[in-house]
């Protein structure tokens, strides 16, 4: 482990977000010697996903981060006369306005700890048998983080009342809960064959005892590793650039995906399902026959709108929303097309943009399922890691927890020639790829950033309950006032491997106009109810209850032009952090563009040789003797609806 790094590479990549990881994979694949480092203890930077305890320690790290004082950098002595240094930043300033609320009852058994929790931020974890919850000091620190986190609001408007309410939850069983209990029971029955952890009481156990039929905070902690909480909430367009790249490069073999199962809309205070595929439209109970025909006709037109210029050319100058009003569509249908299919707003898109977005949506539909989107099992944070694996397979060297102090620039040529790492080691390279957040304030003094508002909620049921509790939904809530933006809601169920059974993980995202809580709380209040209100009004059981909530703002560097960074040598390339968009096209485009600057004329992530080609069969193998009817595969238990990207079939719709 006290291994030394080689002192020379072709490409050094700093940061393990999605664009950096794709570039690292591409460079390594085309024969470049790649060093890929990240100062954090985890992969993905702001693209990462965390277990519950991982997320709490991520929050803590942000707190501690603020206190780092820059001591005199030791690397300065190493800079020679004909060299200059570009110091890299020491604290990450990309996350702000963090606020945490806990609504679930905190029936604290002392020392509850996530089963098998990994303290990622400590370099050496040595205890051999701490897999069981021990009497550690874990929880107090978490409490501390909860309370101090919410103090980070710039002004004194700390929302202290809500968490305190949450603590007051008592054990009185109400009729409302008994009704809910039935719902939960069916839920449990249908999922009880999923893996269970012997050490930890599962939802199944709890459901047998009506009095404890609720998720408590300590259960969330205990089952913490069931959570994979994305910092950035995205999905994959099934014909988007990322899917194409995953298939082309075979990186898809490292991940698995599920279809988003439904598109939802929020209209007149109600959540409803948007029919989008042909089958959906015909099966829809909410649409009249006339509406069905209207919608099909319009969608069919959108599929090939370019061929019918005469039908829309008069409307090119107006917004898509105005244009829809001129079409034979009821207000209901206009709403669906505008917000849920084109996923735009009244003012944002022109007719052409709207038609293009609608066409893209329809084009993606049916490749893998009934909606145009896929979600990676275990969360979005798997994706950068998959590309890192690819890079490593082709010889790339990986170092987490490894920070870089500065870039060394040769004065004469104006080119960057080396980095100096945290140990003072000088490592030479030809190209340097740096993620935006690693730059110091000196480098970024002229950069204008946008912000993304994010909320992460753990809830006890879906925003739209149906016979199946395993739905993955996307819901767009239009902006209420002009100047603010629509809020995108992605609700994940436990079979996406991102939350514990009996809970849902809900991600809210929008472009920031204020702090994340100010931007998103109105929508949260429309869709959810805090856990405590249940005892009072038990007739309103449709609204899911909030168990836990996190708000934060993330810096969006996706739109920053390279020229706004101060004094970067031409062989230093900048990768941006995540953007606010729903898909990942931005990251892929960026990666491909930068790759082509580093390796001109090289193919971008061509398929690797198939490992199957190097098979050496055992002596006993008799080819062709297998009786296919008797085939019993180890992986026959695979969730059927899990999409594998290997060899996609053409759409069935």
């Amino acid at each position: 482990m006290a291994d030394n790094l080689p002192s020379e590479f072709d490409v050094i990549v700093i940061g393990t977000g999605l664009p950096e990881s794709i570039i690292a994979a591409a460079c390594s694949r085309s024969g470049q010697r790649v060093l890929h480092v990240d100062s954090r203890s985890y992969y993905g930077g702001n693209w990462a996903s965390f277990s519950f305890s991982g997320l709490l320690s991520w929050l803590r790290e942000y707190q501690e981060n603020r206190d780092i004082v820059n001591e005199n950098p030791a690397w300065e002595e190493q800079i020679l006369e004909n060299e200059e240094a570009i110091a890299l930043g020491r604290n990450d300033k990309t996350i702000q306005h963090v606020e945490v609320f806990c609504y679930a009852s905190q029936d604290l058994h002392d020392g509850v700890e996530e089963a098998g929790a990994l303290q990622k931020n400590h370099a050496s974890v040595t205890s051999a048998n701490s897999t069981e919850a021990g009497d550690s000091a874990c929880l107090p620190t978490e409490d501390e983080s909860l309370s101090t986190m919410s103090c980070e609001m710039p002004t004194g408007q700390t929302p202290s009342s809500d968490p305190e309410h949450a603590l007051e939850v008592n054990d009185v069983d109400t009729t409302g809960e008994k009704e809910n209990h039935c719902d939960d029971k069916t839920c449990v029955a249908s999922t009880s064959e999923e893996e269970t952890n012997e050490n930890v009481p599962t939802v199944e156990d709890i459901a047998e005892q009506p009095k404890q039929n609720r998720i408590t905070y300590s259960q969330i902690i205990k089952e913490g590793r069931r959570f994979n909480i994305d910092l950035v909430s995205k999905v994959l367009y099934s014909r988007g650039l990322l899917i194409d790249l995953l298939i082309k490069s075979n990186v898809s073999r490292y991940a698995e995906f599920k279809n988003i199962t439904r598109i939802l809309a929020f209209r007149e205070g109600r959540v409803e399902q948007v029919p989008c595929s042909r089958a959906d439209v015909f099966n829809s109970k909410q649409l009249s026959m006339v509406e069905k025909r209207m919608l099909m006709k319009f969608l069919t037109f959108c599929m090939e709108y370019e061929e019918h210029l005469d039908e829309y050319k008069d409307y090119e100058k107006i917004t898509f929303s105005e244009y829809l009003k001129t079409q034979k569509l009821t207000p209901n249908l206009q709403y669906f097309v505008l917000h849920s299919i084109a996923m735009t707003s009244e003012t944002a898109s022109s007719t052409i943009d709207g038609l293009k977005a609608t066409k893209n949506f329809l084009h993606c539909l049916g490749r893998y399922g009934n909606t145009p989107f896929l979600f990676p099992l275990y969360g979005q944070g798997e994706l950068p890691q998959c590309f890192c694996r690819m890079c490593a397979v082709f010889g790339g060297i990986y170092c987490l927890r490894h920070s870089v102090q500065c870039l060394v620039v040769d004065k004469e040529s104006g080119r960057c020639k080396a980095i100096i790492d945290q140990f003072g080691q000088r490592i030479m390279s030809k190209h340097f790829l740096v993620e935006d957040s690693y730059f110091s304030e000196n480098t970024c003094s002229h950069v204008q950033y946008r912000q993304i508002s994010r909320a992460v909620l753990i809830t006890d049921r879906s925003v739209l309950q149906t016979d199946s509790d395993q739905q993955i939904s996307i819901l767009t809530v239009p902006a209420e006032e002009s100047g603010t933006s629509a809020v995108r809601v992605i609700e994940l169920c436990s079979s996406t491997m991102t939350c514990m059974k009996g809970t849902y993980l809900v991600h809210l995202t929008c472009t920031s106009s204020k702090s994340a809580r100010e931007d998103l709380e109105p929508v949260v209040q429309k869709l959810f109810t805090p856990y405590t209100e249940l005892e009072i009004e038990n007739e309103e059981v449709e609204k899911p209850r909030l168990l836990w909530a996190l708000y934060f703002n993330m810096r969006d560097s996706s739109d920053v032009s390279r020229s706004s960074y101060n004094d970067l040598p031409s062989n230093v390339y900048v990768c941006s952090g995540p953007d606010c968009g729903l898909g990942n096209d931005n990251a892929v485009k960026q990666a491909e563009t930068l790759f082509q600057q580093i390796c001109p004329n090289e193919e971008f992530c061509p398929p690797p040789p198939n490992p199957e080609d190097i098979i050496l069969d055992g002596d006993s193998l008799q080819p062709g003797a297998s009786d296919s009817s008797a085939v019993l595969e180890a992986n026959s238990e695979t969730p059927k609806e899990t999409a594998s990207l290997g060899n996609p079939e053409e759409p069935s719709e």
Partner: protein
Amino acid sequence: MSMEDYDFLFKIVLIGNAGVGKTCLVRRFTQGLFPPGQGATIGVDFMIKTVEINGEKVKLQIWDTAGQERFRSITQSYYRSANALILTYDITCEESFRCLPEWLREIEQYASNKVITVLVGNKIDLAERREVSQQRAEEFSEAQDMYYLETSAKESDNVEKLFLDLACRLISEARQNTLVNNVSSPLPGEGKSISYLTCCNFN
């Protein structure tokens, strides 16, 4: 998938400190050779060997760390769909044994609950330099409820046995699962399809 020429397919993943002989174990088993020197296997994601056990064809897909263990930077996704883990240490290197608890924590965190873990002490051909006694390793593996075996990739000692025993256990586990659960019931987090083998036809 029914076209594939095997009855079972298992994903086996190797972990353990750098230099304990993980790659050598794989190469010895799949190719029958002991690679001299540290020739990194560039571009090889995993090795495959199909063996026959009691008349059934078992395809073993064996994944190596791709060097990411060198600076303790293994990706979580590496563990995700493994049916079995081979946790390897070097009997002549105390340090590689002392790191085992750390590896176990990673397993607990990222691997499926039902993964089978085997502890392997490699390099028994260097017995005169042994630093970790067999008894200590046995006690440790018993405490952690793991199978335990000592091997020499160089002399080919116990290497076949390691993988074949593991294949037998995986078969009986797979059988039990199909008896306990009906085949269609999903078991997320374990034994999942390997993307490139399957095509998308659930539609």
